[in-house]
């Protein structure tokens, strides 16, 4: 949600800004998939579009596979877990002396849900043909959980003092574990 500093007339540049925002979202997702050195700079420019889209996609998938009566509840729970969870983890990291700003941290955590969203899509897509056994789901989700945690570790670890790193990373692992569990039991 960075200001469109070169946004001037209304019609054409708004289109350009939207395109640029979409490109930035794609760029950040790419860096989550392949976490490397430049990634911290990529996520300095925070936005909440990516997390919102990932969260909505995941909530839609998980609620479609829920029982009819529980669809709305499943949707709301996924939504609340992702947003409130990332807010709590962020506050924790900040209290531990991390030098990430609040929204930046929420942005990072939201983007790092991406691998788990992929797992949800894969399980959902395969599940429409033939429901997967939990022993097949488990390794897929575990792999993606590790991937999410690894990506967010790359972003967050450098911002928290060395001594307290584990205290900051542990809630992040739990946060993704809860989401991963939601994916497994879908």
């Amino acid at each position, binding site marked *: 949600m960075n200001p469109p*500093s*070169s946004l001037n007339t*209304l019609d054409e540049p*708004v289109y350009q800004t939207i395109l640029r925002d979409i490109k930035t979202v794609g760029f950040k997702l790419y860096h989550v998939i392949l976490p490397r050195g430049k990634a911290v*700079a990529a996520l300095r420019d925070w936005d909440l579009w990516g997390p919102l889209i990932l969260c*909505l996609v995941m909530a839609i998938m998980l*609620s479609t596979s829920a029982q009819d009566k529980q669809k709305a509840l499943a*949707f709301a729970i996924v939504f609340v877990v992702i947003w409130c969870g990332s807010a709590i983890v962020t506050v924790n990291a900040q209290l531990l002396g991390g030098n990430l700003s609040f929204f930046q941290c929420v942005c990072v955590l939201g983007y790092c849900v991406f691998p788990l969203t992929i797992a949800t899509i894969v399980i959902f897509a395969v599940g429409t043909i033939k429901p997967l056994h939990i022993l097949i789901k488990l390794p897929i989700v575990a792999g993606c959980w590790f991937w999410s945690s690894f990506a967010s570790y790359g972003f967050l670890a450098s911002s928290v003092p060395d001594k307290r790193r584990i205290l900051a990373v542990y809630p992040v692992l739990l946060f993704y574990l809860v989401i991963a569990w939601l994916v497994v039991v879908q």
Partner: protein
Amino acid sequence: MSFVNDLGFTDTNANGSANIDINDSSPFINNSGTMNNSGNINAPPNVPNYHHPIATIFHVLFKVAAILVYLFGNFIFGLGFIMTFILSILMISFDFWTTKNVTGRLLVGLRWWNQVMEDGTNVWYFETAPKTFRPHQMESLIFWMGLYINPLVWLVFFLSSLLSLNFNWLIITVIALALAFANIYGYYKCNSKDKNASHTNIARNYIGSTIVKKAASSFM
């Protein structure tokens, strides 16, 4: 060479190629002949000689759309909770984006945004257009009315879903209120700064931030 950037400040150290189009189409500088006379602040409000009719429409449209979807999506259009939720959230975030990034700047010449520095600190910018920018009276009225009435409506929805312990619908209203108050706070700060601070300060602030932004973008 000096160019006028989109807030109307003269930007002398920018490279030309990036700024030529900015100069031509700055919203705060009336280049085209048709817009020259409409900058008059005394224009009677009953003459709909809007500077930015499309921005004004969208400023109101997304707010009304979000409220209508929230109210009628489930019961009248039969979309079901999930579809209503998604549509409301999308309308609310489109409205937030439009109000923050487009209409505030075009309708009243204010802008607020945030930049994360390299050391992780957050810097908030509250900018106002220079005195040469004169908002259209009616557009400015619509902007502020929309900004302040919108959260009042959502507050009613919030209280009604809170009192009926309707957890699912409460989420939507909380998000709508949070985003609406973010915009109110941002524009309130811009407006109070407009009355207190000198414009050179804001110009310095802005140019400084542009340099930081260019430096930041070279990292990526």
